[in-house]
């Protein structure tokens, strides 16, 4: 897949990198077990610090999206390994709370909020079926 980083964005580069790879897995542009470039190679291709890439990879590994083998290098986790876990659920709740709070504060209804969620879900789903 093509990773696209915006150097002028306010989002830190390691977050951009992490989100791009998760999006790649979600839409199918990164297949299960697909090899990813090594930390050194990716940092050199992007022209950014090694630690930035390391940080993104470490977070992805922690969350179960990628596996870092000593010999085989970095690969995307098999699809059965990427699932909803108990920790993920609690993390999701705490992450989404401030977003919903703000929407609620601005007077958004549940349906309006659900609509947006639905839109994003369908876009992801359709780009996944497009690949197949």
């Amino acid at each position, binding site marked *: 897949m093509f990773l*696209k980083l915006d150097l002028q964005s306010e989002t830190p580069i390691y977050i951009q990198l992490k989100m791009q790879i998760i999006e790649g897995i979600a839409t199918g542009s990164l297949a299960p077990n697909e090899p990813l470039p090594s930390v050194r190679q990716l940092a050199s291709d992007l022209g950014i*610090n090694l630690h930035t890439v390391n940080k993104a990879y470490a977070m992805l590994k922690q969350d179960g999206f990628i596996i870092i083998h000593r010999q085989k290098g970095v690969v995307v986790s098999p699809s059965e390994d990427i699932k909803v876990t108990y920790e993920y659920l609690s993390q999701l709740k705490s992450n989404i709370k401030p977003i919903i709070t703000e929407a609620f504060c601005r007077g958004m209804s549940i349906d309006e909020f659900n609509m947006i969620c639905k839109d994003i879900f369908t876009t992801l789903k359709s780009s996944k079926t497009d690949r197949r």
Partner: protein
Amino acid sequence: MKTLIILLIYLTCYIPTLILLAIIPYITRKTVCFGICIPEEAHSNSDIIRIKKAYLNKMILCGILLSIASLFPAIIMRSEDAYSFLPAGILLMVAIMYIFYFKSRNQVKYIKSKMNWVNESSQVIIVDTSFRNKKHIASPMWFMLYVLVIIITIISAYVLYDTIPNRIPSGWNFNGEVKGWMQKSYASLLWAPMVQTFLMIVMVLSYWMIGKSKQIIDPANPRKSSDQNRSFRYMWSIYIIITGFVLTIMICSLQLSMFGFIKNKLVITILPLASVFCIVVAALILSIITGQSGSRLFTNKAAPSSDSKISSRDDDIYWKLGLFYYNPDDPSIFIEKRFGIGWTNNWSRPISWILTFGLLAFITGFIVLSNTLVK
């Protein structure tokens, strides 16, 4: 004979080199002009077209005058020393190229600031995660052919040792006459395999550099750009492997002439010249076909998702004089050149200096060693 050789040298070395130097602005990426980042649309700007044309004309005119001037001594002087002007002519040609380059570069820089081409849109970097999983470089197994030739060279020297005359030539002049002699010994027979091994090391290093170098993908059209970049590397890695192989075989045949198995003067002078000619012309043709970073490949393919709004990042500040890349924040060691075809170093990385000085020391050591062997 002498005029023929001079004419041959002129055709094989001067003309292709001159063409290669003169067409550089036309084979670089569309987003770079004389080492300055410009928008792709700017290529149809009349001033840019004029600067490129002026460079081409000046380069060809000066190159032709210079090559005639440096060939002149070789034609009128009888002494062999006259030939030493020939490589100097090539060096002068490169020096003149840089003078014209700096002049044109300043003009482009001026136009860029006047037209306000400074990149204000977002600065985006694109990387293909599967770049090195797809075909991007020829197999390193081809280097086994080199090893094979080197082994044949060594074995042939030792098998034929008794039939080799006691006095063997250590060099020839341009007319194919023997310049010096040396005594036959097992050590002096090592000369050819040593040069071959040295050559192989240099070629393997270049090959490694092609594979390692940073991928630069045009955000306006990532897929096409990635394909271009990979094909470019693949084609040039093959060029590197073939060039080294031709030279390795040439050295093997040189050894056979040293042993007196090849006596034909014409073969001794023509063969190296023909090899050099093929290598230089192949480089010229390949440069025109691929362009820097493959920018001239697949140009007929329509850009499906061309988004001219996103442009690549303007990294002029990291390119000192437009020639030397110095970016301490970039961990990459090798990067594609901005003027010309090929790759260069990131000079902010200590490994670049270690490699450069290491190679220089290696070459010096090699010359010293081969001189002691020949004596």
